[in-house]
């Protein structure tokens, strides 16, 4: 969870977050970047911080960091997004700024936590029943979730199952099942398990 900062009391929460963002932008050290991003992502867990985070455009910072090469940064960034996306204002921002493709990309990550956070973020961004954003329940995504739902990894399996049951229509799932055999689009499973063969 978020740490208690040793900071001048008069600087306050906003000042501290500002300092974190500044350090992230300016530092050359990968370690420092990871630490700061993790700190911000943990702050994103508490709804009381959301107005500050929006003001400092931390949401955009998270979305940008999804394209980083450093896998740890991606893991922390998608974790931060997963923490704050259930909030309606944050959700709108992510949808409007074209965050969906970036998040769907995370489904292909070899990092287990990244994939889990991505699946959860997609669920929070969709409303129950297929409807709000068609990209979130597009064929590749549903196929990917189908594969996840057969995974040996319990957490992934559970999340994928919830996605298929609550956020896809039965016809979409059925279609994805028939397509799976032919589709050239494969989203590989995370490295933590052997690939599933149909």
């Amino acid at each position, binding site marked *: *969870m978020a*740490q*208690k*900062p*040793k*900071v001048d009391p008069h600087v*306050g929460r*906003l*000042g501290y977050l*500002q*300092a*974190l*963002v500044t*350090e992230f*932008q300016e530092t050359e050290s990968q370690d420092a970047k*990871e*630490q700061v991003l*993790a*700190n911000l992502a943990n702050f994103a*867990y508490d*709804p*009381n911080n*959301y*107005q500050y985070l*929006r*003001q*400092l*455009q931390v949401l*955009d*910072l998270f979305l940008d960091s999804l394209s980083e090469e450093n896998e740890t940064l991606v*893991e922390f960034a998608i*974790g*931060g997004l*997963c*923490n704050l996306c*259930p*909030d*309606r*204002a944050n959700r*709108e921002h992510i949808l*409007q700024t074209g965050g969906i493709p970036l998040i769907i990309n995370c489904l292909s990550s*070899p*990092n*287990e*936590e990244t994939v*889990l*956070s991505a699946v*959860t973020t997609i*669920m*929070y961004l969709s409303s129950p029943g297929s409807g709000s954003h068609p990209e979130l329940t597009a064929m590749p995504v549903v196929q990917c979730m189908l594969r996840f739902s057969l995974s*040996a*990894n*319990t*957490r992934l399996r*559970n*999340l994928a*199952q*919830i996605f298929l049951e609550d956020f896809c229509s039965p016809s979409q799932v059925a279609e994805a099942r028939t397509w799976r055999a032919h589709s050239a689009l494969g989203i590989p499973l995370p490295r*933590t*398990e052997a690939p599933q063969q149909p």
Partner: protein
Amino acid sequence: MASSGGELGGVFDHHVQRAVCDTRAKYREGRRPRAVKVYTINLESRYLLIQGVPAVGAMKELVERFALYGAIEQYNPLDEYPAEDFTEVYLIKFMNLQSARTAKRKMDEQSFFGGLLHVCYAPEFETVEETRKKLQERKAYIARTAKNKDHYMTKKKLVTELKDTKDFRQDFHSGTSGFCATTQNTSTGNLDPCLPYSCELPLCYFSSKCACSSGQHMDRASNFSQDGRNHAETVEHCMYNDSLQKIQMKPFKNSLACPGAQKAIPSSEAVDRFMPRTTQLQERKRRREDDRKIGTFLETSTSSNEVMIGPLLPDIPKVDMHDDSLNTTANLIRNKLQEVISSVPKPPEDKLEDVHTSRPLKQRRRI
């Protein structure tokens, strides 16, 4: 990032305690040394895995210690889980997530019967339904907190506006663009209380323009809206919002001004009717005494000559106590209360009346 098996009870990466980070910059060092880790709702769970429990048959004490943080639904030792020599591993399931989070935070790295406990979450033990419920609760919690915050902020803003209405109006006119931009940013219409902060802070993630706060907000607003038209609409929307707030403020202001108004109006009435002031005071006193004698109080009696401005104080509900003496007492108390309330604008008269009946009434000079 391999885990040694997807089976339940296997070792997972998230069970492993990571090394504490020792390269943190001073300003962001916490009170306790911690590892670099992000906790999401996926990782947190009602299930806690406790490692490093000395094998001294202390399961009962362990559970009791954890039960301090919340009700426990079930617990069991995990015999097949790899553990160091002479230590055991337990799984504890709490009734709710918040208890589990508190327990984890407090009990991790605590000593127990000579050993150091390592506590972590074990979400892999959840069923599909439990996971689903967990995600839904998180969403509901955020929605609730956001709604309360909006409510609180709007109330707070109204109160602060009331206190310095003049200042606010000036600030509003000078900081209109900033105000509007933040209203647009937070689509829930949340009034941004951080406006004073933004004046001091020059840097923001995307702003390449110079460090003027209102300019900054304008820039972000234009990033948001595709065309200038949207921005103009937002400005109108802001003005409308604010004028609504001003209207809401009026009755509030008036109720505060009520005592003053009550003072002022009778004197003007006196001037209009050419009645000497003493008569007014004596008349009111007489009326109050009449009411006391009758033993009932009607609000309209004292206010028939006075114009009540602002919200009326709520009428004290009369309850029949089914006992004569109790009823009399209640009535006496009620009347006294009403008397005190009605005599608030004119305290000196009552006081003098009660204490010094022999001395003639001092006439208060009224403007």
